[in-house]
C-alpha cells in the first residue's frame, strides 16, 4: 500500500499536467475568435468614454485611455440630441409589438399544437415561412399601406409593421412549446370541469409561462434588429427608434461625433445583446425546427 501511493500520485500529477496542457491549447485556439468577436464592442466602449482629442492622436496607443475618461459624450447625447426620445420610442414600440405578438401568437400556437385542427401542420409551416419573406420585398407595398393608415412619419407605423416578423416566429416557437406540455394535464382540467377556454387560460397558460416569456423577449430583440422599416417609414428626427436614429441623425454630412455615436449605440445594444444571449439556444431551436435540443 505504502509503496503504491507515490505511483498513484505521480499518475495523478501526470493526468493533471496533461489536462492543463489540453486546456491551454484550447484557450490558445479560441483566443483569436474571442478577440475578433469582442474587440469591436470593446472599441465602442472605450471610444464612448474617451475625450475627443484622445480619439485623434495617432502617436498614442489607442487601446486604453491616454487622457482622463469622460462622460461628456453622454451629456451631448442626452442634452443636445433627440436620444431621450429615441430611447422612449424604442421602448414603446417594443412593448406594443410584444403585446400584439402575445395576443395573437399565444392563442395561434396553442390552437395549432393542441386542438387537432385539420391542416394544422401545414398552416403552422405556412405561417413560419412568412418569417422568411424578407423586408426588402415587403417594404415598398407596406409603405403604401402605412400611408393609407395615416401612420407615415410616426413610430406607430413600426408598431403595425414589426409584428409581421415577430408573429410568425413566435407562433412557431410557442407551437413547439405547447406540444411539450403533457396532454394529461389538460385532460385533468377538463375532468375537473374546465371548459375548453378555461383549460387553456387557467391551466395551460400558467404552466407555459416560460415559453410565453421567451416569446416576449423575442418580440423585443427582433424588433431591435430591424433597420430597413425604420429607415423607410419614419423620417422625423424625434420619432425614430434608437437603431435607426443613431446612424441617421447623429451623423451629419462628414461630421462624426464618434464618442457620442458609440455611447448611443452601446447603451441600447449591450442590454439587448446580453438578453438575447440567454435566449439564443431557443432562437436556434426555433428556426431549426427543434432538432437540436
Amino acid at each position: 500500500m505504502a509503496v503504491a501511493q507515490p505511483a498513484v500520485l505521480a499518475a495523478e500529477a501526470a493526468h493533471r499536467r496533461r489536462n492543463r496542457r489540453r486546456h491551454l491549447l484550447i484557450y490558445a485556439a479560441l483566443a483569436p475568435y474571442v478577440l475578433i468577436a469582442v474587440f469591436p464592442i470593446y472599441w465602442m466602449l472605450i471610444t464612448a468614454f474617451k475625450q475627443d482629442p484622445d480619439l485623434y492622436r495617432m502617436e498614442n496607443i489607442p487601446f486604453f485611455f491616454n487622457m482622463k475618461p469622460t462622460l461628456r459624450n453622454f451629456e451631448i447625447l442626452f442634452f443636445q440630441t433627440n436620444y431621450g426620445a429615441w430611447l422612449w420610442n424604442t421602448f414603446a414600440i417594443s412593448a406594443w409589438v410584444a403585446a400584439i405578438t402575445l395576443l395573437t401568437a399565444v392563442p395561434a400556437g396553442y390552437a395549432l399544437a393542441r386542438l387537432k385542427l385539420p391542416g394544422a401542420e401545414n398552416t403552422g409551416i405556412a405561417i413560419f415561412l412568412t418569417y422568411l419573406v424578407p423586408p426588402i420585398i415587403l417594404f415598398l407595398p407596406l409603405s403604401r399601406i402605412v400611408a393609407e393608415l395615416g401612420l407615415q412619419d410616426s413610430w406607430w407605423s413600426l408598431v403595425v409593421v414589426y409584428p409581421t416578423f415577430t408573429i410568425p416566429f413566435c407562433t412557431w416557437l410557442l407551437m413547439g412549446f405547447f406540444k411539450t406540455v403533457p396532454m394529461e394535464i389538460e385532460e385533468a382540467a377538463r375532468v375537473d370541469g374546465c371548459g375548453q377556454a378555461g383549460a387553456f387560460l387557467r391551466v395551460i397558460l400558467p404552466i407555459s409561462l416560460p415559453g410565453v416569456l421567451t416569446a416576449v423577449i423575442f418580440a423585443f430583440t427582433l424588433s431591435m434588429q430591424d433597420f430597413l422599416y425604420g429607415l423607410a417609414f419614419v423620417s422625423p428626427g424625434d420619432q425614430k427608434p434608437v437603431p435607426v436614429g443613431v446612424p441617421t441623425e447623429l451623423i451629419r454630412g462628414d461630421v462624426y461625433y464618434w464618442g457620442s455615436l458609440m455611447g448611443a449605440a452601446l447603451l441600447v445594444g449591450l442590454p439587448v445583446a446580453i438578453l438575447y444571449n440567454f435566449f439564443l439556444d431557443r432562437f436556434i431551436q426555433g428556426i431549426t425546427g427543434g432538432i437540436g435540443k
Partner: protein
Amino acid sequence: MTQSSLRGGPDPVARAAVVSVPARRVERPWLSHSARRLMFGYTLLAPAALYVMLLVAAPFVFSLYLALSDASVGDPVARFVGLDNFRAAWEMDLFWLAFRNSVVFLVVAAVLKSLLGTSLAFLLLQNFRGRKLIRGLVVIPFTLPIAISVLSWKWMYDSQFSVINWVLSRLGLIGQFGTEGWPIWLGDPKLALIACILVNVWRTFPFSAIVLLAGFTSVPVEVLDAAKVDGCSFFQRFRHVVAPMIFPILMIGFLFDTVFTLSDLSVVYLLTQGGPANATKILPVLAYQIGIQAGSLGRGAAIALFLVPLLLPALVLVLRNIKRREW
C-alpha cells in the same frame, strides 16, 4: 384526494365532474363536441392568421402589382405598364452590377463564415472549463442589433483614425497615413466590397458555429458508441453517422443565412450607401434607393422582386427540411 381523483378513483367529486360534462353538452345540442373544438381552434388562430395575411401575404401580392405599374411616391394614381419595370431593370447596367455584387457578397461571405464557423464549432465541442462564458462572448456579434454593430465597424474603418490600420501600420504591414500603402477601406472601390463582406462574416460566423454545435449535440452518444463498437473509424463515423444526422439542421441554418444575407441592406447602406463608384451596390440598396429615395415605387418593387428567384430555391429547401421534422 386530488391524486386519486386524477386517477379516476372512487372520489365522489371526480365522479360528479365526469357526469357533469355530458350534462353541459346537452345545453347546446346543436354543436357536437368536435365542432366546438374546431370553432374554438379557428377563433384562436384567426388573429395571427389575419395579421400575417393582411400584412405579409397581401403586401407581397401588392408588390407584384406595384412592379407592373408606374406607381411613384408623388403620384398616387398608378397605371398598368406590364413588364416595363422589369425590362428597364434588365437593361440597366447598374442592375447587373448590383446583381453581380450581391452574388459575390453572398458566396464569399458564405465561404468565410463556414470556415470560421466550423472551426469554432469544433473547438466549442471540446470539454473545457469556462465553455459557457466563451460561448457567450463569441456569440455577441450575432446578438447585437445590426445597425448598432455596423457603426462600430464604420469607426474602425475610418479613413484616417482606423484602429485596424493603426495595428497593421505598427506591425509594418502597411505604409504610413497619407502614403499609397494606407488602405482606405470604405473609400477605395477595390476594398469597399470586401470590407462590407467582412462585417457580414463577423456578424454571422457565430450563428454558423452555434447551428453546427446544435447539430453535433443532437447526435446521441449511444449511436456514436454503437458505431465505434462496430469498428467504424473516426472519419467513417463522421461520414456515415454524424453527417447524415446533422445535415437537415445544417441545411436550414445555411438557408436562413442565405435569405438574411441576400436581403440585408443595413451593412452596406450604413457603411458606404453603395459607393464608392457603385462598388458595393447590392440589390437591396438599389431597390431602396430607387423605390424610396427616387420615389419610383414600381421600379423599386421590380428590382426587389428580382431577389425572389434567388431566394426561392432556399425557401423550397427549408420547406422540405422542415416537413421532415418529427411531429
